[in-house]
């Protein structure tokens, strides 16, 4: 595609365009259905919606978020498939139970997605912002509702200017009610990941919600309504930190929706030439402003890449539809990089340092996650050495150390943890009991280890505490620790 474009570009440099068979006079444009739109500045951005490839893709990407609403109702083994049980400090994800001890995996997951964001941005701009970000998606749905209820942008703008009246209320109230409803459905679904969804529904009807649940659902619902309905593009422009750091992830090889200035300028429409004057050479942009009118953040892409642009591609749809009508090649606005416009060959993706670094960190995180999930032992052993006293002189000449043993059962079956100790000759140990630990619980006991003073060659003597689950002897954990004695004389 790029070679083809270059050809076009080269030719357009000499003539206004190679496909100059359509007259771009206002009158003719009107007759083939190209609107010349005014640019609105200030006030709410009311973006026009037109069909196109990117529009379709946006809907597909947005449908990803349906998972949010469906997720809480999935079941697994009789309990909620995805449940972040904060009061009991357990995360259930399908068959897996993650306890706070394994929370480092969550950090790896976050790292993975943070780098995925960076890598995708380095390759093709703000893919997240344009297609997947919940704010973009919710705003998209909200404005779609607005269009269905209030009509096209010009109608909406007129309505906004009208004084409040009964007929205006008739239009506005249902819209806001619907927005609120979606907001509350969103927050409800969110909360349902932390409390059992069916239980939440049941207690909704018996008015039995707790303070936390009620305030979270209401606050989050109102926030969704306020952000997606009222603030819209202001969030992307004024609040979102990601918009501010994206510049650091872009480079000249990043492809983003870009206006082909060389081909498009000078923009304008054909005018009747007065006798004796030469017809001005025009670029392919007929300055119809459709690309501005469809932009959900209200930017003019023809000024180049700017922080308001969330790279959603809707201006590409718009421009392509116009190019089709005036029989010019599509792609006056297209996904392209600065390097491409400078006439440079794009290097292969795996040769770009930025991409290589980002994706190798991603791979590392992914490997860590996999390693963590596959080797996750159902048992976690902590041995806390008594500090006061570090050791005790016993009457028979032995030195005694004390440990508080904590054994966590991270599995789904009850555990019978037996504690034994391996150490130097003459060592004896004494454990209060074999620990019976229910799933998700911690068993705790005292461990006393005695070593004859004559056996101690140093202040520190390494010993190994071994914990075996008698119910499932495959589960063994070794805990290496240090036996502390008096200074050797």
């Amino acid at each position, binding site marked *: 595609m790029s070679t083809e474009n270059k050809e076009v570009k080269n030719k357009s440099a000499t003539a206004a365009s190679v496909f100059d068979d359509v007259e771009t006079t206002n009158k003719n444009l009107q007759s083939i259905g190209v609107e010349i739109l005014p640019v609105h500045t200030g006030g709410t951005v009311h973006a026009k919606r037109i069909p196109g490839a990117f529009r379709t893709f946006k809907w597909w990407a947005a449908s990803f978020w349906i998972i949010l609403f469906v997720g809480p109702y999935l079941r697994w083994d009789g309990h909620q498939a995805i449940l972040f049980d904060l009061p009991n400090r357990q995360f259930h994800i399908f068959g897996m139970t993650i306890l706070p001890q394994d929370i480092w995996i969550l950090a790896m997951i976050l790292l993975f997605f943070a780098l995925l964001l960076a890598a995708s941005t380095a390759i093709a701009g703000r893919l997240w912002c344009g297609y997947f970000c919940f704010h973009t998606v919710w705003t998209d749905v909200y404005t779609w509702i607005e269009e269905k209820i209030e009509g096209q942008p010009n109608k909406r703008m007129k309505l906004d200017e009208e004084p409040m009246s009964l007929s205006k209320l008739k239009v506005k109230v249902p819209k806001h009610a619907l927005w609120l409803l979606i907001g509350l459905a969103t927050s409800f679904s969110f909360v349902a990941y932390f409390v059992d969804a069916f239980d939440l529904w049941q207690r909704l009807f018996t008015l039995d919600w707790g303070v936390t649940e009620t305030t979270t659902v209401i606050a989050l619902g109102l926030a969704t309504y306020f952000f997606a309905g009222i603030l819209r593009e202001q969030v992307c422009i004024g609040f979102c930190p990601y918009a501010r750091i994206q510049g650091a992830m872009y480079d000249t090889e990043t492809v983003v929706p870009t206006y082909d200035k060389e081909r498009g300028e000078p923009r304008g429409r054909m005018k009747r030439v007065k006798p004796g004057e030469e017809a001005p050479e025009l670029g392919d942009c007929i300055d119809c402003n459709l690309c501005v009118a469809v932009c959900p953040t209200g930017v003019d892409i023809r000024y180049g890449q700017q922080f308001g642009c969330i790279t959603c591609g809707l201006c590409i749809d718009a421009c392509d539809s116009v190019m089709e009508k005036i029989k010019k090649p599509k792609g006056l606005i297209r996904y392209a990089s600065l390097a491409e416009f400078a006439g440079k060959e794009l290097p292969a993706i795996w040769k770009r340092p930025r991409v290589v670094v980002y994706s190798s960190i991603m791979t590392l995180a992914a490997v860590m996650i996999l390693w963590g999930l596959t080797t996750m032992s159902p048992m976690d052993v902590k041995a806390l050495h008594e500090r006061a*006293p570090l050791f005790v002189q016993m*009457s028979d000449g032995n030195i005694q150390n004390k440990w508080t043993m904590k054994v966590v059962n991270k599995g789904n079956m009850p555990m019978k943890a037996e504690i034994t100790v391996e150490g130097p000759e003459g060592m004896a140990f004494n454990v209060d009991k074999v620990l019976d630990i229910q799933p998700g619980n911690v068993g705790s006991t005292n461990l*006393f280890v005695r070593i004859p003073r004559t056996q101690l060659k140093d202040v520190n003597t390494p010993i190994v505490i071994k914990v075996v689950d008698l119910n499932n002897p495959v589960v063994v954990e070794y805990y290496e620790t240090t036996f502390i004695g008096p200074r050797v004389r």
Partner: protein
Amino acid sequence: MALHNPWPDEGNTGHIWDEDLRELDNPPPLWWMLSFYAGFIMIVFYALYYPTIPLTDNSGEFTKGMAGWTQVEEYHDDYTVLKDWRKAKFADKEEKLATMSVDEILKDEDMKSYAVATSKMLFGDYCAACHGAGGQGNPNFPVLADDDWLWGGKAAQIEATINNGRIGNMPAKGMMGNLTEQEIADVADYVIALSEGKGNDTTFAAGKAVYTKGMCMACHGPAGKPLAPAGAANLTDQVWRFSADRDEVINVITNGVNVKKNGVYLAGTKQAVMPAFKERLPNAEVNVKRLAVYVHALGGGQ
């Protein structure tokens, strides 16, 4: 301030840099300004309602506010709630604790861990000053974490010790108070040898003879090991009540322990008194038991 303003009508402030970089006079939105002013008004009510303004007379005083709210009071209220919650939650266990004997508690896994868990603070408040936070002892104060007990290491004996206190007694210069300095040095060497298992060496025959002459066996037993736990130290083991240092051993034998004349401690005598805690502890019937279990579990209970 630029002399030439090419944009006179756009409402800029007249500050123009780099030819076209100019400062516009855009007021913040109304809702923003309203919340800004509302913040000011709120401060007034806040200042009236809560303690706010420090007084300038260096007294450390401040305006108290109409609500009478204080941080400490809020803390106490919260703490009361927590205490009540604990009381309610563990009421049945506390009741059970009152009816059980220490031996029964030790056998009941659940009650034992409850007793141990709830004793830590009590031990810190009442015991740790002498015996150390972990029962590790202090110079001249016995270690509770070892298995050497002057008054018995069984749970019931520990309970009795905490309840009634203990006062050990060791006469100065032997039972009759007639040992000479040389004899004391000899017996000190013998006693140190005893703990090292060398008591029968002929080297220490003199000290052994003094041990008999001073009637040390009356309390410490014929072979240095008391026949029953009654406060006398076991001289054959490796745990020392006071110190293994020879000078210190001589000092103890010379001046004794808790030796009084006319109700006054003699100079140099070791003062070793364990007070009776049934009068000192709050809710002593239950708390003494709790502590006995805790001490028993420190590492040396029998």
